[in-house]
């Protein structure tokens, strides 16, 4: 079974804090993705990576950065958290090509 794990299910941070969200997959997938999901807006792609140390901006990269030092691990970094970054964050991985993405359980981040 494909397994994608995320470091926290729930996280509460203060405005201005640096926040790290970590994702690990065990299927040797090349592609990894970070999304945020908000009511009425659906899943929106923040960043994705198609190889170690490679990254590309998604649709809403502002305020975020990513790191992929190892194939199985993809981190999302909020340099200075703001209240409008309160959201559900979902990580996914897939093989390259027309293959399904597998999602982690999500991290519900609240920034106060």
């Amino acid at each position, binding site marked *: 079974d494909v397994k*994608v794990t995320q470091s926290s299910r729930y996280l509460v941070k203060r405005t201005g804090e640096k926040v790290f969200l970590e994702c690990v997959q065990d299927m040797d997938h*090349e*592609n990894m993705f970070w999304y945020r999901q908000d009511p*009425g*807006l*659906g*899943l*929106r*792609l923040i960043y*994705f990576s*198609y190889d170690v140390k490679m990254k*590309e901006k*998604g649709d809403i990269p502002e305020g975020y950065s990513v790191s992929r030092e190892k194939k199985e691990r993809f981190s999302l970094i909020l340099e200075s958290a703001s209240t409008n970054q309160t959201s559900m964050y*979902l990580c*996914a991985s*897939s093989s*390259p*090509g*027309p*293959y*399904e*993405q*597998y*999602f*982690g*359980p*999500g991290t*519900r981040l609240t920034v106060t």
Partner: protein
Amino acid sequence: EDQVTQSPEALRLQEGESSSLNCSYTVSGLRGLFWYRQDPGKGPEFLFTLYSAGEEKEKERLKATLTKKESFLHITAPKPEDSATYLCAPFYGGATNKLIFGTGTLLAVQP
């Protein structure tokens, strides 16, 4: 601009009452489409991949179909455990496999 629209936004069914969910899209270079199920507070769970118009896939009470402009998820004789949000995601191929997600249909099946 690529767009994905799912309808209805919400659907309430009685147990055993069959229905269909719709996913329509304007995506250039469409290579196929995924369907996912999402339970509250959890990540989406993969259901089906459809690659070409006319293709159908089935899993238990669910059947997904694909045309050039839309996809349907048919639910036959649903049970309360089918209650979830159903998401569709067309993809336009390439090695990076970027998807565009619809906002989903929230299905509630009452016993």
